[in-house]
């Protein structure tokens, strides 16, 4: 077995007891005696993890627990107090007014709205028709043939884009767009 695989096996067997309390198997002890690199790494890890564990598990004073219970009991006893506690918490958005506001917004979305009155326009008020009249007024029907001749001359190039009115193709027979 190579040295690298010894190290791998050593770390593979590493459990919480070894990290926190230096409880190692005989094989692990044996490996540490021969491998200063793993020994140094383990010491580093143990130092950091034990220090943090001590910090995180530091005993709180009795009034800390009592105060926590009092605040929870007060909060659940009265809805107003519950809101106060939530307001000072990390989820401060859960305020007492959130539920009514949400309900009002939902009602506004879901309630049926009165239908708008039907739109009745006089003929001269209809934008499409008035627009068409203005458009056709620009063209003299006598010039339509010319337009078609010019457009036809450009047609073999199917790929080109028409960028002016000369490119507008109209079938003379039935007046449809080509």
């Amino acid at each position, binding site marked *: 077995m190579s040295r690298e695989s010894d190290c791998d096996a050593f*770390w*593979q067997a*590493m459990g*919480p007891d070894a*990290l*926190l309390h230096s409880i190692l198997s005989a094989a692990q002890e044996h490996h540490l005696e021969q491998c200063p690199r793993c020994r140094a*790494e383990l010491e*580093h*890890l143990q130092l*950091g*993890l034990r*220090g*943090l*564990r001590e910090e*995180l*598990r530091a005993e*709180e004073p009795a009034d*800390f*627990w009592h105060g*926590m*219970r009092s*605040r*929870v*009991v007060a*909060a*659940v006893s009265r809805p107003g107090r*519950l809101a106060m*506690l*939530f307001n*000072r*918490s*990390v*989820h401060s958005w859960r305020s007492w007014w959130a539920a009514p506001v949400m309900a009002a917004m939902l009602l506004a979305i879901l309630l049926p709205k009165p239908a708008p009155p039907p739109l009745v326009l006089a003929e001269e008020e209809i934008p499409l028709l008035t627009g068409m009249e203005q458009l056709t007024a620009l063209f003299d029907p006598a010039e339509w043939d010319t337009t078609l001749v010019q457009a036809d001359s450009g047609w073999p190039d199917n790929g080109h884009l028409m960028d002016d009115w000369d490119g507008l193709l109209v079938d003379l027979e039935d007046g449809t767009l080509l």
Partner: protein
Amino acid sequence: MEDRDLVQAWKRGDREGFELLMVRYQKPLYYLVRSMVMNREEAEDITQQAFIRAFTRINRLRKPERFRSWLFSIGVNLARDHIRQRRSQVALEDWDQADRSADPERIAMARDGMRNMKSMLRLLPPRQQEVISMRLFAGLTFAEIGDLLGIREGSARSNFHFGIRALRDLLKGRECSE
């Protein structure tokens, strides 16, 4: 008195059942949450919230004998939400982001920030961090961790080992940069 009896008394409207459960579980829950968020005030706040949430949702608990793991899962979820929120706020300490940005300067800054084990743990993937914290600092077994996180015991173990390996790599990285 068993948890089940206290929960049933509580459901019948006996407030003392709730208070006795709070006395029983406030310490382990607080230390579990504190091992995750690694901050005293935040842990206190989240523990209070967990009890309030348990109080308001007790009717959803179908198996009263499972009260402990139900309460702990409320605390774990609140702590996770909090950590997620904090991670998005403190992007500089987030190794993933520094790594993704592939910006050597940012990576170097993140490494410089690794002053101690706490900051290194925060650089681990969330699941590995959770498992290491719960096992080493909160003292839960791998089976309990698996139950809380909704993963298999074996998966909790492998996350622990991958996390320890990642910590070793981070320690080496820190030594190299110093």
